Protein backbone atom coordinates (compact mmCIF):
# COMPACT_ATOMS: atom_id res chain seq x y z
CA UNK A 1 0.00 0.00 0.00
CA UNK A 2 1.39 3.36 -0.95
CA UNK A 3 0.48 6.76 0.45
CA UNK A 4 -1.64 7.71 -2.50
CA UNK A 5 -4.46 5.24 -2.46
CA UNK A 6 -7.44 4.29 -0.38
CA UNK A 7 -7.68 0.78 1.01
CA UNK A 8 -10.27 -0.87 3.24
CA UNK A 9 -8.53 0.21 6.44
CA UNK A 10 -8.44 3.82 5.30
CA UNK A 11 -12.11 3.72 4.32
CA UNK A 12 -13.02 2.36 7.74
CA UNK A 13 -10.85 4.98 9.47
CA UNK A 14 -12.60 7.70 7.43
CA UNK A 15 -16.00 6.54 8.65
CA UNK A 16 -14.70 6.42 12.23
CA UNK A 17 -13.33 9.95 11.81
CA UNK A 18 -16.71 11.21 10.57
CA UNK A 19 -18.36 9.56 13.57
CA UNK A 20 -15.90 11.28 15.91
CA UNK A 21 -16.44 14.65 14.23
CA UNK A 22 -20.23 14.27 14.36
CA UNK A 23 -20.00 13.31 18.02
CA UNK A 24 -17.92 16.40 18.75
CA UNK A 25 -20.17 18.73 16.77
CA UNK A 26 -23.58 17.18 17.35
CA UNK A 27 -24.83 20.00 19.57
CA UNK A 28 -23.70 22.54 16.98
CA UNK A 29 -25.47 20.65 14.17
CA UNK A 30 -28.64 20.44 16.24
CA UNK A 31 -28.43 24.13 17.08
CA UNK A 32 -28.10 25.04 13.39
CA UNK A 33 -31.06 22.76 12.65
CA UNK A 34 -33.22 24.32 15.35
CA UNK A 35 -32.89 27.69 13.61
CA UNK A 36 -34.31 26.51 10.29
CA UNK A 37 -35.43 22.93 10.80
CA UNK A 38 -36.54 20.67 13.59
CA UNK A 39 -33.48 20.39 15.82
CA UNK A 40 -32.55 16.78 15.23
CA UNK A 41 -29.70 16.76 12.68
CA UNK A 42 -26.94 16.27 15.25
CA UNK A 43 -28.81 13.56 17.10
CA UNK A 44 -29.72 11.70 13.91
CA UNK A 45 -26.25 11.84 12.38
CA UNK A 46 -24.71 10.74 15.68
CA UNK A 47 -27.07 7.77 15.91
CA UNK A 48 -26.31 6.76 12.30
CA UNK A 49 -22.54 7.08 12.30
CA UNK A 50 -22.23 5.41 15.71
CA UNK A 51 -24.18 2.49 14.24
CA UNK A 52 -21.91 2.49 11.18
CA UNK A 53 -18.78 2.30 13.35
CA UNK A 54 -20.29 -0.65 15.20
CA UNK A 55 -21.29 -2.35 11.95
CA UNK A 56 -17.77 -1.98 10.58
CA UNK A 57 -15.99 -3.14 13.75
CA UNK A 58 -15.83 -6.83 12.89
CA UNK A 59 -16.28 -6.43 9.14
CA UNK A 60 -13.38 -7.62 6.99
CA UNK A 61 -14.33 -6.80 3.40
CA UNK A 62 -12.19 -7.31 0.31
CA UNK A 63 -12.97 -3.99 -1.32
CA UNK A 64 -12.98 -0.33 -0.38
CA UNK A 65 -16.48 -0.14 -1.76
CA UNK A 66 -17.85 -2.83 0.55
CA UNK A 67 -16.89 -0.74 3.59
CA UNK A 68 -18.74 2.27 2.23
CA UNK A 69 -21.77 0.34 0.97
CA UNK A 70 -22.17 -1.18 4.43
CA UNK A 71 -21.83 2.29 5.94
CA UNK A 72 -24.53 3.63 3.61
CA UNK A 73 -26.89 0.76 4.30
CA UNK A 74 -26.45 1.28 8.03
CA UNK A 75 -27.12 5.01 7.69
CA UNK A 76 -30.33 4.36 5.74
CA UNK A 77 -31.59 2.00 8.42
CA UNK A 78 -30.70 4.17 11.43
CA UNK A 79 -30.60 7.89 10.66
CA UNK A 80 -34.18 8.60 9.58
CA UNK A 81 -35.33 11.98 8.31
CA UNK A 82 -34.07 13.19 4.96
CA UNK A 83 -30.45 12.74 6.01
CA UNK A 84 -30.76 8.94 6.20
CA UNK A 85 -31.61 8.33 2.54
CA UNK A 86 -29.43 11.21 1.32
CA UNK A 87 -26.25 10.28 3.21
CA UNK A 88 -26.96 6.57 3.07
CA UNK A 89 -27.61 6.67 -0.65
CA UNK A 90 -24.47 8.74 -1.21
CA UNK A 91 -22.22 6.31 0.69
CA UNK A 92 -23.76 3.38 -1.15
CA UNK A 93 -23.15 5.10 -4.49
CA UNK A 94 -19.56 5.98 -3.56
CA UNK A 95 -19.01 2.40 -2.41
CA UNK A 96 -20.47 0.82 -5.53
CA UNK A 97 -18.01 2.83 -7.62
CA UNK A 98 -15.01 1.48 -5.67
CA UNK A 99 -15.29 -2.24 -6.22
CA UNK A 100 -11.53 -2.75 -5.81
CA UNK A 101 -9.09 -3.53 -2.96
CA UNK A 102 -7.50 -0.09 -3.36
CA UNK A 103 -8.48 3.07 -5.18
CA UNK A 104 -6.36 5.91 -6.52
CA UNK A 105 -7.17 9.61 -6.57
CA UNK A 106 -8.98 9.54 -9.91
CA UNK A 107 -11.06 6.55 -8.84
CA UNK A 108 -12.01 8.34 -5.63
CA UNK A 109 -12.98 11.44 -7.64
CA UNK A 110 -15.26 9.35 -9.84
CA UNK A 111 -16.80 7.70 -6.79
CA UNK A 112 -17.44 11.05 -5.09
CA UNK A 113 -19.14 12.19 -8.31
CA UNK A 114 -21.41 9.15 -8.10
CA UNK A 115 -22.18 10.10 -4.49
CA UNK A 116 -23.15 13.63 -5.46
CA UNK A 117 -25.29 12.31 -8.33
CA UNK A 118 -27.15 10.08 -5.86
CA UNK A 119 -27.91 13.03 -3.58
CA UNK A 120 -29.09 15.17 -6.48
CA UNK A 121 -31.28 12.43 -7.90
CA UNK A 122 -32.96 11.70 -4.57
CA UNK A 123 -33.25 15.21 -3.20
CA UNK A 124 -33.79 16.98 -6.52
CA UNK A 125 -31.79 19.93 -5.21
CA UNK A 126 -29.32 22.08 -7.13
CA UNK A 127 -26.41 24.22 -6.01
CA UNK A 128 -27.70 27.36 -4.30
CA UNK A 129 -30.76 25.67 -2.79
CA UNK A 130 -29.14 25.79 0.68
CA UNK A 131 -28.56 22.07 1.14
CA UNK A 132 -25.67 19.63 1.61
CA UNK A 133 -25.03 19.96 -2.14
CA UNK A 134 -23.68 23.46 -1.54
CA UNK A 135 -20.77 21.86 0.32
CA UNK A 136 -20.52 18.64 -1.69
CA UNK A 137 -20.46 20.14 -5.20
CA UNK A 138 -17.54 22.55 -4.62
CA UNK A 139 -15.69 19.85 -2.69
CA UNK A 140 -15.99 17.45 -5.60
CA UNK A 141 -14.91 20.14 -8.08
CA UNK A 142 -11.84 20.96 -6.02
CA UNK A 143 -10.98 17.28 -5.58
CA UNK A 144 -11.35 16.60 -9.31
CA UNK A 145 -9.25 19.64 -10.23
CA UNK A 146 -6.42 18.45 -7.98
CA UNK A 147 -6.70 14.90 -9.31
CA UNK A 148 -6.56 16.14 -12.90
CA UNK A 149 -3.49 18.21 -12.05
CA UNK A 150 -1.75 15.09 -10.82
CA UNK A 151 -1.91 15.96 -7.12
CA UNK A 152 -1.79 13.16 -4.60
CA UNK A 153 -4.76 11.97 -2.58
CA UNK A 154 -3.85 14.02 0.47
CA UNK A 155 -3.66 17.30 -1.45
CA UNK A 156 -6.94 16.57 -3.25
CA UNK A 157 -8.68 15.75 0.03
CA UNK A 158 -7.46 18.94 1.70
CA UNK A 159 -8.60 21.03 -1.27
CA UNK A 160 -11.98 19.31 -1.11
CA UNK A 161 -12.34 19.94 2.64
CA UNK A 162 -11.44 23.62 2.21
CA UNK A 163 -13.95 24.01 -0.62
CA UNK A 164 -16.65 22.21 1.36
CA UNK A 165 -16.17 24.59 4.29
CA UNK A 166 -16.29 27.58 2.00
CA UNK A 167 -19.48 26.25 0.43
CA UNK A 168 -20.90 25.62 3.89
CA UNK A 169 -20.28 29.21 4.95
CA UNK A 170 -21.77 30.47 1.70
CA UNK A 171 -25.12 28.86 2.57
CA UNK A 172 -25.76 31.44 5.31
CA UNK A 173 -27.14 34.25 3.12
CA UNK A 174 -29.11 31.89 0.88
CA UNK A 175 -32.85 31.37 0.96
CA UNK A 176 -33.66 27.66 1.24
CA UNK A 177 -35.47 26.15 -1.73
CA UNK A 178 -35.40 22.47 -0.77
CA UNK A 179 -35.95 20.48 2.38
CA UNK A 180 -37.71 21.51 5.53
CA UNK A 181 -35.98 24.89 5.70
CA UNK A 182 -37.66 25.85 2.43
CA UNK A 183 -40.96 26.11 4.33
CA UNK A 184 -39.52 29.17 6.06
CA UNK A 185 -39.06 31.11 2.85
CA UNK A 186 -37.13 34.32 3.46
CA UNK A 187 -36.82 33.49 7.15
CA UNK A 188 -34.24 30.83 6.31
CA UNK A 189 -31.82 33.59 5.26
CA UNK A 190 -29.02 34.26 7.74
CA UNK A 191 -28.61 30.71 9.02
CA UNK A 192 -25.91 28.26 7.98
CA UNK A 193 -27.34 25.05 6.55
CA UNK A 194 -26.93 22.07 8.89
CA UNK A 195 -26.67 19.54 6.02
CA UNK A 196 -23.89 21.52 4.35
CA UNK A 197 -22.18 21.70 7.73
CA UNK A 198 -22.21 17.93 8.29
CA UNK A 199 -21.01 17.42 4.71
CA UNK A 200 -18.06 19.73 5.39
CA UNK A 201 -17.28 17.66 8.50
CA UNK A 202 -17.21 14.51 6.36
CA UNK A 203 -14.75 16.03 3.86
CA UNK A 204 -12.52 17.42 6.64
CA UNK A 205 -12.52 13.95 8.19
CA UNK A 206 -11.36 12.50 4.85
CA UNK A 207 -8.54 15.05 4.61
CA UNK A 208 -7.39 14.34 8.15
CA UNK A 209 -7.62 10.58 7.70
CA UNK A 210 -5.53 10.67 4.53
CA UNK A 211 -3.14 13.19 6.07
CA UNK A 212 -2.55 10.96 9.10
CA UNK A 213 -1.58 8.07 6.86
Amino acid at each position, binding site marked *: MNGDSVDTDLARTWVQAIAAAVDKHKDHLTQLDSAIGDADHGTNMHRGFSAAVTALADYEPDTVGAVLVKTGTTLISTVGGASG*PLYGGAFRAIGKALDTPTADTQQVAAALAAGLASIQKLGAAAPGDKTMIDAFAPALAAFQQQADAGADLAAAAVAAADAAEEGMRATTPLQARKGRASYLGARSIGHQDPGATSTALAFRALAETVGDR
Partner: protein
Amino acid sequence: MKKFINAPETVLAEALSGIAAANPGLKVDAGNKVIARAAGTKPGKVALISGGGSGHEPLHGGFVGHGMLDAACPGEVFTSPVPGQMLAAAQAVDGGAGVLFIVKNYTGDVLNFQMAAELAAEEGITVETVLVDDDVAVQNSTWTAGRRGTGATVFVEKIAGALAEQGGSLTEVADIGKRVNAASRSFAVALTACTTPASGKPGFDLPEDEMEVGVGIHGEPGRSREKLRPAKEIVATALDAILADQPLDDGDETIVMVNGLGGTPLIELYLVFNEIAAALAAKGVVVARNLVGNYVTSLDMAGVSLTVCKADADMLSLWDEPVNTPALRWGI
Protein backbone atom coordinates in the same frame (compact mmCIF):
# COMPACT_ATOMS: atom_id res chain seq x y z
CA MET B 1 -36.29 20.64 30.38
CA LYS B 2 -38.82 19.04 32.72
CA LYS B 3 -40.16 15.81 31.26
CA PHE B 4 -41.30 12.41 32.48
CA ILE B 5 -38.51 10.46 30.82
CA ASN B 6 -35.64 8.21 31.89
CA ALA B 7 -33.14 9.13 29.17
CA PRO B 8 -33.58 10.87 25.80
CA GLU B 9 -32.25 7.81 23.95
CA THR B 10 -34.85 5.42 25.36
CA VAL B 11 -38.00 7.54 25.04
CA LEU B 12 -39.35 5.84 21.91
CA ALA B 13 -38.66 2.26 23.00
CA GLU B 14 -40.21 2.81 26.42
CA ALA B 15 -43.25 4.62 25.00
CA LEU B 16 -43.77 1.73 22.55
CA SER B 17 -43.74 -0.72 25.45
CA GLY B 18 -46.32 1.44 27.17
CA ILE B 19 -48.54 1.58 24.08
CA ALA B 20 -48.42 -2.22 23.84
CA ALA B 21 -49.21 -2.65 27.54
CA ALA B 22 -52.07 -0.16 27.46
CA ASN B 23 -53.81 -1.48 24.34
CA PRO B 24 -54.68 -5.18 24.10
CA GLY B 25 -56.03 -4.51 20.60
CA LEU B 26 -52.54 -3.67 19.38
CA LYS B 27 -49.36 -5.65 19.06
CA VAL B 28 -45.98 -3.97 18.99
CA ASP B 29 -42.93 -5.33 17.21
CA ALA B 30 -40.28 -3.66 19.36
CA GLY B 31 -37.37 -4.71 17.15
CA ASN B 32 -38.81 -3.25 13.94
CA LYS B 33 -40.74 -0.49 15.75
CA VAL B 34 -44.07 -1.38 14.19
CA ILE B 35 -47.47 -0.99 15.85
CA ALA B 36 -50.12 -3.25 14.29
CA ARG B 37 -53.57 -4.61 14.98
CA ALA B 38 -53.37 -7.64 17.25
CA ALA B 39 -56.03 -9.33 15.13
CA GLY B 40 -54.01 -9.02 11.93
CA THR B 41 -55.38 -8.15 8.49
CA LYS B 42 -58.46 -9.83 7.05
CA PRO B 43 -57.41 -11.74 3.91
CA GLY B 44 -58.26 -9.67 0.85
CA LYS B 45 -58.46 -6.36 2.73
CA VAL B 46 -56.25 -3.49 1.61
CA ALA B 47 -53.79 -2.69 4.41
CA LEU B 48 -53.21 0.92 5.47
CA ILE B 49 -49.83 1.90 6.85
CA SER B 50 -48.80 5.32 8.03
CA GLY B 51 -45.87 6.61 9.96
CA GLY B 52 -43.69 9.55 10.69
CA GLY B 53 -41.74 11.06 13.50
CA SER B 54 -42.83 10.39 17.06
CA GLY B 55 -43.94 13.25 19.27
CA HIS B 56 -47.24 13.71 17.41
CA GLU B 57 -49.25 11.25 19.51
CA PRO B 58 -51.87 9.95 19.11
CA LEU B 59 -50.67 10.12 15.47
CA HIS B 60 -49.90 7.46 14.20
CA GLY B 61 -50.08 4.49 16.56
CA GLY B 62 -53.26 5.81 18.17
CA PHE B 63 -55.10 5.36 14.89
CA VAL B 64 -54.29 1.68 14.41
CA GLY B 65 -57.40 -0.49 14.64
CA HIS B 66 -60.64 -1.45 12.95
CA GLY B 67 -61.72 1.15 10.40
CA MET B 68 -58.43 2.98 10.23
CA LEU B 69 -54.77 1.87 10.02
CA ASP B 70 -53.44 -1.67 9.97
CA ALA B 71 -49.98 -0.61 11.09
CA ALA B 72 -47.98 2.46 12.07
CA CYS B 73 -44.24 3.05 11.91
CA PRO B 74 -43.10 5.58 14.50
CA GLY B 75 -39.71 7.17 13.88
CA GLU B 76 -37.55 8.79 16.52
CA VAL B 77 -38.96 12.04 17.90
CA PHE B 78 -39.67 14.36 14.94
CA THR B 79 -37.60 12.10 12.67
CA SER B 80 -39.12 9.99 9.94
CA PRO B 81 -39.05 6.22 10.31
CA VAL B 82 -36.59 4.26 8.17
CA PRO B 83 -37.37 2.03 5.15
CA GLY B 84 -36.71 -1.19 7.08
CA GLN B 85 -39.52 -0.33 9.48
CA MET B 86 -42.01 0.29 6.71
CA LEU B 87 -41.00 -2.85 4.87
CA ALA B 88 -41.43 -4.90 8.05
CA ALA B 89 -44.84 -3.30 8.53
CA ALA B 90 -45.88 -4.02 4.95
CA GLN B 91 -44.78 -7.65 5.24
CA ALA B 92 -46.62 -7.99 8.54
CA VAL B 93 -49.98 -6.60 7.44
CA ASP B 94 -50.32 -7.25 3.70
CA GLY B 95 -53.54 -9.21 3.33
CA GLY B 96 -52.89 -9.95 -0.31
CA ALA B 97 -54.81 -6.93 -1.60
CA GLY B 98 -51.91 -4.53 -1.41
CA VAL B 99 -50.72 -1.82 0.93
CA LEU B 100 -51.51 1.88 1.04
CA PHE B 101 -48.80 4.15 2.44
CA ILE B 102 -50.17 7.40 3.88
CA VAL B 103 -47.27 9.85 3.90
CA LYS B 104 -47.08 13.40 5.18
CA ASN B 105 -45.25 15.72 2.81
CA TYR B 106 -41.97 16.18 4.61
CA THR B 107 -38.81 15.44 2.68
CA GLY B 108 -37.61 12.78 5.12
CA ASP B 109 -40.92 10.93 5.23
CA VAL B 110 -41.26 11.07 1.46
CA LEU B 111 -37.74 9.75 0.77
CA ASN B 112 -37.92 6.93 3.32
CA PHE B 113 -41.39 5.78 2.24
CA GLN B 114 -40.27 5.95 -1.40
CA MET B 115 -37.34 3.64 -0.63
CA ALA B 116 -39.66 1.36 1.34
CA ALA B 117 -42.11 1.18 -1.57
CA GLU B 118 -39.27 0.05 -3.85
CA LEU B 119 -38.19 -2.60 -1.33
CA ALA B 120 -41.77 -3.82 -0.89
CA ALA B 121 -42.24 -4.09 -4.67
CA GLU B 122 -39.14 -6.28 -4.78
CA GLU B 123 -40.85 -8.51 -2.21
CA GLY B 124 -43.94 -8.76 -4.41
CA ILE B 125 -46.12 -6.43 -2.34
CA THR B 126 -48.20 -3.91 -4.31
CA VAL B 127 -47.93 -0.44 -2.81
CA GLU B 128 -49.85 2.75 -3.49
CA THR B 129 -49.09 6.04 -1.77
CA VAL B 130 -51.25 8.97 -0.72
CA LEU B 131 -49.22 12.08 -0.05
CA VAL B 132 -50.85 14.42 2.46
CA ASP B 133 -50.07 18.11 1.86
CA ASP B 134 -52.79 20.21 3.44
CA ASP B 135 -50.93 23.02 5.23
CA VAL B 136 -51.76 26.30 3.52
CA ALA B 137 -49.26 28.21 5.64
CA VAL B 138 -46.70 27.07 3.10
CA GLN B 139 -46.95 28.57 -0.34
CA ASN B 140 -46.87 26.02 -3.11
CA SER B 141 -44.39 27.04 -5.76
CA THR B 142 -41.76 25.57 -7.99
CA TRP B 143 -39.19 26.65 -5.43
CA THR B 144 -40.46 24.78 -2.42
CA ALA B 145 -40.91 21.14 -1.61
CA GLY B 146 -44.63 21.84 -1.57
CA ARG B 147 -47.03 22.16 1.30
CA ARG B 148 -46.48 20.32 4.54
CA GLY B 149 -48.73 17.43 5.54
CA THR B 150 -50.45 17.88 8.89
CA GLY B 151 -53.98 17.50 10.29
CA ALA B 152 -55.63 16.12 7.15
CA THR B 153 -53.70 12.91 7.79
CA VAL B 154 -56.38 11.97 10.33
CA PHE B 155 -59.17 12.55 7.79
CA VAL B 156 -57.37 10.53 5.11
CA GLU B 157 -56.68 7.65 7.48
CA LYS B 158 -60.28 7.57 8.78
CA ILE B 159 -62.07 7.79 5.42
CA ALA B 160 -59.70 5.58 3.39
CA GLY B 161 -59.63 3.14 6.31
CA ALA B 162 -63.41 2.83 6.24
CA LEU B 163 -63.44 2.10 2.51
CA ALA B 164 -60.73 -0.54 2.95
CA GLU B 165 -62.86 -2.15 5.66
CA GLN B 166 -65.79 -2.27 3.21
CA GLY B 167 -63.65 -4.17 0.73
CA GLY B 168 -62.54 -1.36 -1.54
CA SER B 169 -59.68 -2.16 -3.93
CA LEU B 170 -56.23 -0.64 -3.49
CA THR B 171 -56.94 1.79 -6.32
CA GLU B 172 -60.29 2.81 -4.84
CA VAL B 173 -58.87 3.23 -1.32
CA ALA B 174 -55.94 5.29 -2.63
CA ASP B 175 -58.33 7.35 -4.75
CA ILE B 176 -60.61 8.33 -1.86
CA GLY B 177 -57.52 9.15 0.23
CA LYS B 178 -56.25 11.48 -2.49
CA ARG B 179 -59.69 13.09 -2.81
CA VAL B 180 -59.85 13.73 0.95
CA ASN B 181 -56.41 15.28 0.88
CA ALA B 182 -57.29 17.46 -2.09
CA ALA B 183 -60.41 18.67 -0.25
CA SER B 184 -58.61 19.48 3.02
CA ARG B 185 -56.69 22.54 4.19
CA SER B 186 -54.95 23.26 7.51
CA PHE B 187 -53.36 26.18 9.31
CA ALA B 188 -51.64 26.26 12.72
CA VAL B 189 -50.67 28.90 15.26
CA ALA B 190 -48.30 28.37 18.19
CA LEU B 191 -48.06 30.26 21.46
CA THR B 192 -44.94 28.43 22.68
CA ALA B 193 -42.21 26.32 21.12
CA CYS B 194 -41.93 22.63 21.95
CA THR B 195 -38.93 20.91 23.50
CA THR B 196 -37.59 17.66 22.06
CA PRO B 197 -36.11 15.27 24.63
CA ALA B 198 -32.89 15.09 22.59
CA SER B 199 -32.19 18.82 22.45
CA GLY B 200 -33.56 19.66 25.90
CA LYS B 201 -34.32 23.24 24.86
CA PRO B 202 -37.32 24.92 23.24
CA GLY B 203 -37.02 24.85 19.43
CA PHE B 204 -37.33 28.62 19.21
CA ASP B 205 -37.73 31.65 21.47
CA LEU B 206 -41.17 33.14 21.53
CA PRO B 207 -41.73 36.17 23.75
CA GLU B 208 -44.70 36.12 26.11
CA ASP B 209 -46.79 38.47 23.97
CA GLU B 210 -46.10 36.95 20.55
CA MET B 211 -47.33 34.01 18.48
CA GLU B 212 -45.86 32.00 15.62
CA VAL B 213 -48.30 32.06 12.71
CA GLY B 214 -48.33 29.16 10.29
CA VAL B 215 -46.16 26.96 12.48
CA GLY B 216 -45.35 23.40 11.42
CA ILE B 217 -45.89 20.29 13.51
CA HIS B 218 -42.23 19.87 14.43
CA GLY B 219 -41.67 23.15 16.17
CA GLU B 220 -40.07 24.45 13.01
CA PRO B 221 -40.70 28.18 12.93
CA GLY B 222 -43.70 29.40 10.99
CA ARG B 223 -43.99 32.00 8.29
CA SER B 224 -44.35 35.04 10.47
CA ARG B 225 -44.30 36.14 14.06
CA GLU B 226 -46.99 38.48 15.29
CA LYS B 227 -48.32 40.07 18.44
CA LEU B 228 -50.76 37.83 20.28
CA ARG B 229 -54.38 38.71 19.49
CA PRO B 230 -57.79 37.50 20.75
CA ALA B 231 -58.86 34.00 19.69
CA LYS B 232 -61.56 35.40 17.39
CA GLU B 233 -58.94 37.27 15.34
CA ILE B 234 -56.50 34.34 15.28
CA VAL B 235 -59.25 32.06 13.97
CA ALA B 236 -60.18 34.66 11.36
CA THR B 237 -56.56 34.82 10.17
CA ALA B 238 -56.33 31.02 9.94
CA LEU B 239 -59.71 30.64 8.27
CA ASP B 240 -58.92 33.38 5.74
CA ALA B 241 -55.78 31.50 4.75
CA ILE B 242 -57.73 28.24 4.44
CA LEU B 243 -60.59 29.76 2.45
CA ALA B 244 -58.26 31.69 0.15
CA ASP B 245 -56.98 28.31 -0.96
CA GLN B 246 -60.19 26.28 -0.73
CA PRO B 247 -63.21 28.52 -1.26
CA LEU B 248 -66.43 27.34 0.38
CA ASP B 249 -69.93 28.29 -0.71
CA ASP B 250 -73.26 28.62 1.02
CA GLY B 251 -74.51 25.11 1.76
CA ASP B 252 -71.14 23.32 1.45
CA GLU B 253 -70.66 20.55 3.98
CA THR B 254 -67.41 20.23 5.91
CA ILE B 255 -65.57 18.14 8.43
CA VAL B 256 -63.73 20.48 10.79
CA MET B 257 -60.96 19.58 13.20
CA VAL B 258 -59.74 21.86 15.96
CA ASN B 259 -56.54 20.14 17.01
CA GLY B 260 -54.37 20.86 20.03
CA LEU B 261 -50.62 20.77 19.54
CA GLY B 262 -49.99 19.14 22.90
CA GLY B 263 -49.85 22.01 25.38
CA THR B 264 -53.26 23.61 24.92
CA PRO B 265 -56.12 22.78 27.30
CA LEU B 266 -59.43 21.55 25.92
CA ILE B 267 -61.27 24.60 27.21
CA GLU B 268 -59.27 26.71 24.73
CA LEU B 269 -59.83 24.21 21.92
CA TYR B 270 -63.59 24.34 22.48
CA LEU B 271 -63.42 28.14 22.55
CA VAL B 272 -61.60 28.03 19.21
CA PHE B 273 -64.19 25.61 17.83
CA ASN B 274 -66.90 28.03 18.90
CA GLU B 275 -65.19 30.75 16.86
CA ILE B 276 -64.65 28.69 13.73
CA ALA B 277 -68.16 27.23 13.83
CA ALA B 278 -69.60 30.74 14.08
CA ALA B 279 -67.38 32.06 11.30
CA LEU B 280 -68.33 29.20 8.96
CA ALA B 281 -72.02 29.49 9.88
CA ALA B 282 -71.88 33.17 8.94
CA LYS B 283 -70.88 32.07 5.43
CA GLY B 284 -73.61 29.43 5.30
CA VAL B 285 -71.05 26.62 5.46
CA VAL B 286 -72.28 23.52 7.30
CA VAL B 287 -69.99 21.88 9.84
CA ALA B 288 -71.37 18.40 9.25
CA ARG B 289 -68.87 16.54 11.44
CA ASN B 290 -66.13 17.69 13.80
CA LEU B 291 -63.23 16.65 15.96
CA VAL B 292 -62.05 18.75 18.89
CA GLY B 293 -59.06 17.49 20.83
CA ASN B 294 -55.42 16.46 20.57
CA TYR B 295 -54.95 14.35 17.43
CA VAL B 296 -51.74 15.56 15.77
CA THR B 297 -49.61 17.04 18.52
CA SER B 298 -46.17 18.61 18.62
CA LEU B 299 -44.92 17.35 21.98
CA ASP B 300 -45.62 20.09 24.53
CA MET B 301 -46.30 22.96 22.15
CA ALA B 302 -49.08 25.34 23.13
CA GLY B 303 -50.92 25.89 19.90
CA VAL B 304 -53.84 24.93 17.75
CA SER B 305 -54.32 23.79 14.19
CA LEU B 306 -57.51 24.08 12.16
CA THR B 307 -58.32 21.61 9.40
CA VAL B 308 -61.31 22.00 7.10
CA CYS B 309 -62.33 19.27 4.64
CA LYS B 310 -64.94 20.10 2.02
CA ALA B 311 -66.69 16.76 2.28
CA ASP B 312 -68.88 15.07 -0.30
CA ALA B 313 -71.54 12.46 0.50
CA ASP B 314 -69.08 9.55 0.09
CA MET B 315 -66.67 11.09 2.57
CA LEU B 316 -69.37 11.80 5.16
CA SER B 317 -70.78 8.30 4.85
CA LEU B 318 -67.33 6.73 5.26
CA TRP B 319 -66.61 9.10 8.15
CA ASP B 320 -69.62 7.69 9.98
CA GLU B 321 -68.52 4.07 9.57
CA PRO B 322 -67.44 2.34 12.80
CA VAL B 323 -63.91 2.91 14.01
CA ASN B 324 -62.15 1.33 16.96
CA THR B 325 -58.68 2.66 17.68
CA PRO B 326 -57.05 3.97 20.86
CA ALA B 327 -57.64 7.60 19.86
CA LEU B 328 -60.74 7.50 17.65
CA ARG B 329 -63.70 5.25 18.43
CA TRP B 330 -67.35 5.32 17.50
CA GLY B 331 -70.12 3.10 16.17
CA ILE B 332 -68.67 0.02 17.84
